[in-house]
């Protein structure tokens, strides 16, 4: 069974989606009360949990503190049961450090850190189940958690992955598509202004195709942004109903 057919002649992907269709997104905010902000998101079979602490004073060595803005501290981890084979995943391995760094960069671009000088914001993300698009699920979950914590941001940060199969850009890749060996691009976007917070791509891609791929990923991010917006509004409605009582 060498090489799955990622895109059929009829234009369907392995799981029955068309190239530009996202997986089903379900999200909840405020799942934990202990933390300042928390959120849970499911993008297809990828499930992520994000909690936010802060802003609070800088923990650990004081020298890390910045005098004009807040420090953002991100930590990414995967549950041992998140993949098909159970596997112990120690902290600080290369993959998760890289992911943590990416998250940090993304949120430094989005959170209005200058409002909180000499303080720290902690964002912890855990992948509960992994089925491709871990980075985007983390970003989306963390966005909701940051909003839940009431920390001001420039805009939602929405992330989505996109790949290139048989001259067609496909968005929101699942695990089977990611491991197919093709190009995978992750893109985080501030949808309202259209600013790109982070782009990451591995594997080769012809320059001519880059624009098409970026465009597909940005469109996907925008529609994700609408979904997240809906989730936030829904949540606010629920909360305000509760507080009104």
């Amino acid at each position, binding site marked *: *069974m*060498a090489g799955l*057919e990622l895109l*059929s*002649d*009829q234009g*369907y992907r*392995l*799981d*029955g*989606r068309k190239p530009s*269709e996202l*997986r*089903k997104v379900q999200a909840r905010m405020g799942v934990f009360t202990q933390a300042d902000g928390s959120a849970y998101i499911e993008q*297809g*079979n990828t499930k992520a949990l994000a909690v936010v602490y802060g802003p609070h004073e800088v923990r650990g060595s004081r020298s890390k503190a910045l005098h004009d803005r807040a420090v953002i501290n991100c930590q990414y981890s995967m549950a041992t049961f998140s993949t*098909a*084979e159970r596997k112990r995943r120690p902290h600080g391995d290369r993959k998760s450090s890289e992911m943590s760094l990416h998250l940090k960069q993304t949120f430094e671009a989005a959170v209005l850190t200058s409002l909180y000088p000499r303080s720290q914001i902690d964002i912890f993300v855990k992948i509960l189940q992994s*089925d491709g698009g871990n980075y985007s699920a983390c970003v989306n979950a963390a966005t909701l958690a940051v909003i839940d914590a009431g920390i001001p941001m420039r805009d939602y940060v929405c992330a989505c992955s996109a790949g290139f199969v048989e001259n067609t850009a496909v968005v929101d890749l*699942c695990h*089977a598509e990611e491991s197919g060996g093709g190009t995978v691009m992750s893109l985080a976007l501030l949808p309202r202004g259209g600013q790109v917070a982070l782009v990451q791509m591995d594997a080769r891609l012809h320059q001519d195709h880059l624009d098409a791929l970026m465009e597909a990923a940005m469109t996907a991010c925008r529609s994700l942004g609408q979904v997240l917006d809906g989730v936030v509004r829904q949540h606010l409605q629920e909360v305000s109903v509760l507080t009104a009582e």
Partner: protein
Amino acid sequence: MLKTEKVLHLKSSRGRKVRVVREHYVRERVPCCSALCQAGCANEDKVLPGDVTHYVVPDVAVVRDFLEVLEFRELRGIVFTQTACQAIQHSRGRRQYNRLRSLLKEPLHECVLFCNEFQQHTYCPRERDEPQEKWQTRCVYRAAVWYHEHLAGLMPVVMITEDPDAVAEYSSLSTGVYVISPQEYLQSFWPDVQAAQELYSSIAQALQERESEGQPREYPEHLPAEILEPGIKAGRYIQGTVRVNKHRAQQEAFIQLEDSTKSTEQGADILVWGMKHRNRAIHGDVVAVELLPCVDWRGRVTALTETEGDERTGEELQSPAIPTARVVGILQRTWRDYVVTFPPWEEVQSQSRNSQRILVTPWDRRIPKIHISTQRAEALQDHRVIVRLDSWESTSLYPNGHCVRVLGKAGELETEIQTILTENGIQVPPFSEAQLREMPVNSKENPWRVDPGQEVVRRDLRASHLVFSIDPQGCEDVDDALSVRMLPGGARLELGVHIADVTHFVRAGSLTDLEARSRATTYYLADRRYDMLPAVLSADLCSLLGGVDRYAMSVIWELDACSLAVRSVWFGRTLMRSSYQLCYEVAQSLLNEEPAEVPELSPLAEEDRRERLGELKQALAELTRVARHLRTQRDQGGALELEGLEVRAQLDADKNITALVPRVPLEIHETVAECMIYANHWVARKIQESFPQQALLRRHPPPRQEHFGPLTDSAKARGFHIDTRSNKALADSLDRAVDLHDPLVNRLLRVMATQAMSNALYFSTGSCPQEQYYHYGLALDRYTHFTSPIRRYADMVVHRLLMSAIESEGAAEPVETPANNKGLEETARHINGKNRAAQHAQKQSTELFQCLYFKDKDPLTDPRCVAEAVVYAIRANGLLVFIPRYGVKGAVYLRNRENQVVDVTGDGSCQWRPGSLQRFPDRICCVTVGGATHTFRLFDHITVRISVQVSRCHAGNLHLDVVSNRALEAPGPDRRPTGKSGTELVQEVVRWAEEASQQAEEHGTVSRFSKEEREYQQSKKPNLYCLLQEIRELALLDESNCQGPSLPSS
């Protein structure tokens, strides 16, 4: 719009069971691809017609096992389910799946794919402990029911399944959906498609046979791909393609390595000796081999073998040992359709106890015998039949196959022609109704006219230019016309080449275009031709006939009148009218100021005629001057001598007697050819500059020096030195190698030089570095084919490229090109393959006619069977000779099976005597027991007797015997001018065949088959072939040069 559901799959990867969760999205709207759709599905490209009586949904097992039956075009309205497609992909692998995919894409076959697993109502999750087959059948049935309901019950749906339980379970569940078995289906719905039913039963029987097998092993098992791939990477195994030696199919096969860099490192090919070591690999398969230890290596046999099973091939007849290997695994099967011959019925009965399972012999000697299970063995005895291979188990000595189609009785002309076509993979059904409907009409009642819209867009040359065409006598598809005139002022000369505008009539992607692409070229056989385009185009509307308005693609150069340097060049679509349709002879006599009859001028008045004639003569003279100039330019670059090429290519490509016609070499031939080459060259430059990544060009790679070995050795025997370092040096030294007493020496040397050449190939510029664009034979840096769009598909592609190049010049934004590099490379490969097939078919059909010609002549009495021959190579036990009179090359044995050698008596006649042979590089000596010695040298003239070695299963061979060691003296009065005999040979054989079929008709036993075939025969006049042959040779000499040496290397 979307609804998600999740399915669980249990999947094992690397042996371990892993639980994988995959999402599965289903939706309401999945296109049904039916013309009857009431719900407004978004049906694109291919839709099922509404005018069929029913739709048929085959289940998984039927698609898997009987896909070939479903491939019949007569079966219409087939709905393949996604379930079935995926099952095919998993169980039958990529090859079968790709076949299904291409079937679905084929626009002429009315079948579609329905993605039932993505449709909300047809998707059914597999239940716990449900067997896979049951689940698949359930899915397919749900799809069938959905179709029926979706089309609002307008169309009955038939589901076919092999499983009797399913028939029982589902057949009465819903009205309008019928569940039956495939056999029943074919019988009740397609009773007139006999072939499909036969194919079905033959596959079913083959399947049954396979199940009931269980015998001891004959061959070692193949290694699985998991072991082979790392092994190849590590260098333990070597990957290559199997090439079986035609003459020793039982013993010798060679492994042709994938990349040439490795093969130079290894020295040469790898030998695989014997069937055991070949381990079920068939000619053409891609295999992995393991080298044997050096002690087991052996050499290739250099003796000529008369019959197989020659046990006396001692060590002295072998070349030094070369790497020898055995096959350990097969990476890719390349099985195609094979033509086989059924044995006579008595033989079947004596051969095996089970007379339904018989062994048939393929026509191609390189293919092993095939086991066939059939009940029609008695009816099919001595018939040629197309079979497909199914499997080759390690328990079986021979592969298993099944019958696909019956061609006819062996030995009949039509059967043999069909055999040749099938063996070369050529399919030439008559043009379909739909294709002919696309054609413009040109009849007496409704003549075709120039479209006024086209008149505006095209440059009109009708009034301004004197256009004429020069072709062989009686030619009806005129591809090209020429014009030449002095521009006002006298400083510039304008030369125009006008090519039939085929692409105007054949739009890219139309049915005719698809058909032309799949044919790729017009096929010329010895007695007929199969056109690439329908006759209304090729012989009428596209043909640049005299005195009528025609569309053309033109290349027009402005040359400096004195120096003939190019000042400017114009490409574009034109509207023209050819004033004169000249033939070569007339044109040449006009050029020589000899009296000649120009038919177009005869009705005119005297002085008018003289004036017109003067004009024409002037033009011809100018043309010749330009052509001479172009020729010298190319000669300086090192172009190989065309005249020589012409002769030797003819010899080589078709071995036809026309080949050695001492044709009066007219300068006008060369003039026309030169203009065409020039046009091709400039078009190549133009499209390559406009589309550096996706232009279709033609390259002729320089030959490999080691191939020149036989040429230089033979030349040395006559004291000539051949310099092969560059094309210029080669051309010069071939020119010098002329023996004044024997003109054949030079010709034979040129034949050998042609054999050393590589093939010229079409390619897409994006897939080849620029320094490889060079055309060796013509000495041009860029070359393509532009001038014969009527009979070559490559020219049509080039026409389209040129048009988009011209359009993109005017337009601000880039116009979309017809194809990307990948697609174009694919096209180029396809055309190259078809060209090769066309040449093989042509060669084989010529050989067939030679055999038929000599078949009913008694070699001992008929003087036509004795001919003069020239020795051109020496082998260990014989000579290779060339017979100029018939253009035949063949082997002459100097030792027979009783180990006797040829002895020459005083008067030159020969007889067999006990003795031995001694071989030297340039001669071979026969030493008889009595002590007499006779030597045969290279380029000796001898006399041979030609007889036919009839073979039931294969193509017949000509057998040559030495009659005398001297040239044939005093040619008898019946000896005809050699130029005619080729045509006559074909005519005689055709007449013979017609008489035979008439006789058969009288007896009322004419086979249905040969009638059908006669309809396919597109040209009734056999000698039209000769004319077309000449166009081919003359209009584009380079082609014959390039394609000449396409003899298989083995």
